[in-house]
C-alpha cells in the first residue's frame, strides 16, 4: 500500500516563539494567568495566533492542564496533548513530544509552557505528613526536599572524585556572572568564591549558593515545522534531536538504591542523544545544563562525554568546557523547572543572549539529572 502522506516525508520541528514574564519573588497572579500570558507572548513572538495552535504538552507538575489552558485561550481543537512527569526532568521531554508531533505531521503549531509560583506558593513538602510509596522510607527522616536527596549524591561525588568546595563554587560564581549581564535575572549582586564558601550550609555538603532560586515565573515556547517557520519573521531554532532516559532502579531525587552509586540517568540519555542527533560533544557550542544544584554541572559534563569520568574539575578549572547556563541558569537567573534553560538555548541560536557565545551552531539543553529526564539539541541549520 502507499505510505500515508504523514510518513512519506519526515518534517523537522523548530522553535519559533519564546516568552518569559518578569521573574520575581511574588508574581502577584495565578499560575494559570501567568501561563496564559506567557503563551500569548510566545505566539506573538512567533507571529502566530491562538487559532494556529493545535497541540500542547505540559509538565505533569504544571497546575493548569492542557484542556484548561486551551479552553481559556480559545484553542479550537488539540490534535495532540500529553504530560511528562518528574518535576524538572520534563523540560526536554515535552520539547521532544512537541518535535515528534510536528515531525510526524500530527500537529503544526505546538505550545509548551511552565508557570510556577514556587516562591510565593510555598513549599510542596511542608504539609505532607503522610508518606506513601518511596516517601515512606525517606520523609520520616526529614529527607523530603530535593536538596536532601542531592546531599547524599554530592557527598559521594566529593568522596569518589576528590572534589574541593571550589569545584561547585566555580559553578555558582560563573552563573552569577552570567546573571549580572542578564537584566531579567533575579540575582544581580556580584558573588566571589569567598561569598560562596562563607555561605551557610543548607543540607551539608550543599551550601546556600549550591541551591537554585525560589522563583515565581512563567515561560512558554511555540514550535512549528521548518516549512512553516520559513514563512515567519523569526530566526528558527531547529530541533536536531533529543533523547529521554530513566536509568535502572530509579527513585526521584534519591537515586542511590541501585546497584551503582553516583550515576545519573544521563549515563543513558547521553549515548541515545548522540546517536539520535549524529553529533558529538565537540559539535556543541554552548550548553544549558539543568542546575537545581551546582554539582549537577560537573557531573553533566562527564556523563555527556565532554570530558572523562572524574575529569570535570580540571576540565572546568582550565576553561576547556563550552560556556554553560548563559542566562544565569536556575542558580542565578530563575528556577522554573528548567524552562528558562530551554528559552536561553533558543536565544543562543538566535544570537540574542546577554552572554552570547558567538555564532552558535548547536546548543545542548538538559533536564534534571536525578530523576527520569531528557536532553534536546537546538541548531541554527536545518537537517
Amino acid at each position: 500500500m502507499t505510505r500515508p502522506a504523514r510518513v512519506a516525508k519526515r518534517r523537522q520541528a523548530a522553535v519559533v516563539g519564546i516568552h518569559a514574564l518578569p521573574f520575581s519573588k511574588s508574581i502577584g497572579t495565578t499560575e494559570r494567568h501567568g501561563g496564559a500570558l506567557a503563551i500569548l507572548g510566545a505566539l506573538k513572538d512567533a507571529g502566530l495566533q491562538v487559532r494556529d495552535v493545535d497541540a500542547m504538552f505540559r509538565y505533569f507538575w504544571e497546575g493548569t492542564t492542557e484542556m484548561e489552558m486551551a479552553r481559556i485561550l480559545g484553542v479550537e481543537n488539540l490534535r495532540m496533548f500529553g504530560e511528562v512527569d518528574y518535576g524538572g526532568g520534563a523540560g526536554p521531554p515535552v520539547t521532544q513530544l512537541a518535535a515528534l508531533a510536528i515531525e510526524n505531521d500530527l500537529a503544526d503549531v505546538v505550545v509548551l509552557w511552565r508557570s510556577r509560583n514556587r516562591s510565593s506558593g510555598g513549599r510542596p513538602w511542608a504539609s505532607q505528613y503522610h508518606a506513601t510509596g518511596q516517601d515512606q522510607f525517606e520523609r520520616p527522616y526529614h529527607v523530603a526536599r530535593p536538596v536532601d536527596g542531592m546531599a547524599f549524591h554530592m557527598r559521594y561525588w566529593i568522596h569518589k572524585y576528590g572534589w574541593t568546595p571550589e569545584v561547585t563554587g566555580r559553578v555558582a560564581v560563573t552563573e552569577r556572572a552570567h546573571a549580572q549581564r542578564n537584566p531579567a535575572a533575579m540575582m544581580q549582586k556580584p558573588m566571589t568564591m569567598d561569598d560562596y564558601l562563607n555561605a551557610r550550609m543548607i543540607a551539608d555538603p550543599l551550601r546556600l549558593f549550591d541551591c537554585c532560586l525560589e522563583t515565581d515565573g512563567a515561560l512558554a515556547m511555540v514550535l512549528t515545522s521548518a516549512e512553516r517557520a520559513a514563512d515567519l519573521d523569526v530566526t528558527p531554532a531547529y530541533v536536531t534531536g533529543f533523547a529521554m532516559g530513566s536509568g535502572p532502579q530509579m527513585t526521584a531525587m534519591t537515586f542511590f538504591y541501585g546497584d551503582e552509586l553516583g550515576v545519573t540517568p544521563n549515563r543513558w540519555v547521553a549515548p541515545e542523544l548522540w546517536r539520535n542527533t549524529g553529533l558529538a560533544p565537540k559539535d556543541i557550542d554552548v550548553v544549558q545544563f539543568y542546575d537545581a544544584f551546582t554539582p549537577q554541572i560537573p557531573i553533566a559534563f562527564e556523563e555527556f562525554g565532554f570530558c572523562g569520568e572524574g575529569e570535570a574539575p580540571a576540565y572546568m578549572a582550565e576553561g576547556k568546557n563550552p560556556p554553560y547556563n548563559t542566562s544565569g541558569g536556575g542558580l542565578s537567573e530563575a528556577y522554573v523547572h528548567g524552562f528558562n534553560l530551554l528559552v536561553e538555548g533558543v536565544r543562543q541560536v538566535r544570537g540574542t543572549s546577554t552572554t552570547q557565545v558567538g555564532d552558535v551552531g548547536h546548543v545542548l539543553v538538559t533536564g534534571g539529572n536525578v530523576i527520569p529526564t531528557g536532553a534536546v539539541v537546538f541548531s541554527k541549520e536545518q537537517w
Partner: protein
Amino acid sequence: MTMAADVETKPQFPIPIPDRDTQPFWDGCARRELWIQHCTECGKWLWQPRPVCSSCQTPEPKWAKVSGGGRVASWTVMRPPTLPAYAEMVPFVVLLVELDEGVRLLGYLVDDGGRLLKTDGIAEGLAMGSRVALRFYDQAGTLLPSWTPAE
C-alpha cells in the same frame, strides 16, 4: 490507625503509610527487626520493597531478617528544619547505609541506645565506609531503622 483517622489528625512527624507490598518491612520494624526482600529464585536482595523481583521477575519476593550491619555509603547533616517537629532535633545526621547484603537504606545516626545524636557527625568521626550497627529510633511511636557507629 485507620486512613480516616490519618486524615483527621495531622501527625507530629511524617509517618509511613504502609501498603500490601511494604507492610512486612514495617511489621518487622515494630518488632525492632530489619526485614529486607531476598529473592529465593535468583538470590537478589531488593530495596525498596516491590511486588516482583526486578532481577528475575519472580512474583512476591520472599522476606528475610537481616542483622542490619553495614557501612556508611553517604550522609547529610540536617540543619534548617522543614517541619516544626524537627526543630528540637537539629543538627542531626541522616545516613545512607550499605548493608552487608548490598542494599542501601536511609536512617538516623543514633547512639548505642538508639537515641538521636544531636551532631554534625564530626565528633563521631563519621567517615565513608565506616562500620555501623542497627538500632531503632522511636519517632513519636514509629520505630525507624537507624544506625550507630560500630568501630
